[in-house]
């Protein structure tokens, strides 16, 4: 412990501040939800007075938004965090899961008309049954799958039989 920097409390506070800044960046494809709420911001580490290392994890392996996320994190940490040098790394392990989306993130998805993923899918679980997905517009449980794949890799396309509106469902992963 004696080898720790002279101002551990100050450093920790600074890291927390930078983490909050990076975490506040909106997802480029789901701007209602922040990176922290989506659960893709893994670590923010100050490695020097002017250097920060950030670890992001993609939702899907091929998610093209990860590059924009990295650019946005660099920009916000430079411009609003005053950090000169920001290095962003993409990590795959442990794999991201829809269970990593926070309660607040789920609420915002539903508010934006996207049915949130159902919790608790284990890593080895089967593709879940399509029961129990409620329409984010009218709340009806009478919804049907139109396609397992939708506007982005992480969503499926459904339709509500009550209000007849199509909607996206953030599918479990």
């Amino acid at each position, binding site marked *: 412990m004696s080898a720790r920097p002279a101002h551990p409390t100050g450093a920790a506070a600074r890291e927390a501040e930078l983490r909050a800044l990076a975490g506040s960046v909106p997802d480029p494809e789901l701007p209602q939800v922040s990176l922290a709420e989506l659960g893709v911001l893994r670590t923010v580490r100050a490695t020097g007075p002017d250097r920060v290392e950030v670890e992001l994890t993609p939702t*899907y*392996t091929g998610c093209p938004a990860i590059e924009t996320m990295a650019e946005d994190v660099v920009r916000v940490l430079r411009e609003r965090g005053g950090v000169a040098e920001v290095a962003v790394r993409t990590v795959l392990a442990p794999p991201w899961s829809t269970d990593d989306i926070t309660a607040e993130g789920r609420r915002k998805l539903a508010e934006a008309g996207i049915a949130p993923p159902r919790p608790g899918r284990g890593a080895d679980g089967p593709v879940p049954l399509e029961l129990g997905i409620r329409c984010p517009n009218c709340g009806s449980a009478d919804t049907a799958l139109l396609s397992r794949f939708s506007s982005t890799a992480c969503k499926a396309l459904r339709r509500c039989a009550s209000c007849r509106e199509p909607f996206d469902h953030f599918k479990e992963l």
Partner: protein
Amino acid sequence: MSGARPGNPGHHAALALGDDALILAQRLGEWSGHAPELEEEVALANIALDLLGQARALLSLCGDEDELAFRREERAFRNVQLVERPNGDFAHTIARQLYFSTWQELLYGRLAGGTGPIAALAAKAVKECAYHRDHAEQWTLRLGDGTEESHRRMQAALDALWRYTGELWQPVEGLDVDWDALESAWRAGVTGVVTRATLGVPEGPQSSPWAAGAGRQGVHTEPFGRLLAEMQHLHRSHPGASW
């Protein structure tokens, strides 16, 4: 990444699995603008995107991903021949997806328990593969148990691609997998779906005397050259192009 230098087993494995994903992504991308319905076009593009993500992660373990994808000659690719087979009609694409995604999900599920960068990628990707396999299963059932014409075409597609499936059990250097057990599990999975779809499991050989079963050694089928030409021409004509 010390485990993936040319010539060592980690490099060999990452290149083989990376090429499988890259080439199948390219094939599926050819459906853009041609799929039978809009939802299906989006589905195939999404699956291609997942595979492309896997390919980027795996090829980056071996070197520069762009250099590897766009500057290698045909004989340097290590993908199984199954993934390079032309899209054919929609049934052929689905048969290829059924054979490949069933295999990939089983393989990645086994690799996910290991350590190192390939295991990390497998643990991530296996969850995506489950959706790919499910997609292929739903379509196999729908086409097989559909009209007389869709049944006939789905059976023809399963038969035509069967001889490219033997290569899937060829051990890949650097991967610690029980290949016999993998084959049994694959056969059980495919048989279950095909039977439920009122189709027959093909009975012919799973390799052919001339070339099938040699993709891992860099021997490819004739349509592969045209695939590479299309995939690589922009990069070769305009090195470093970006937008």
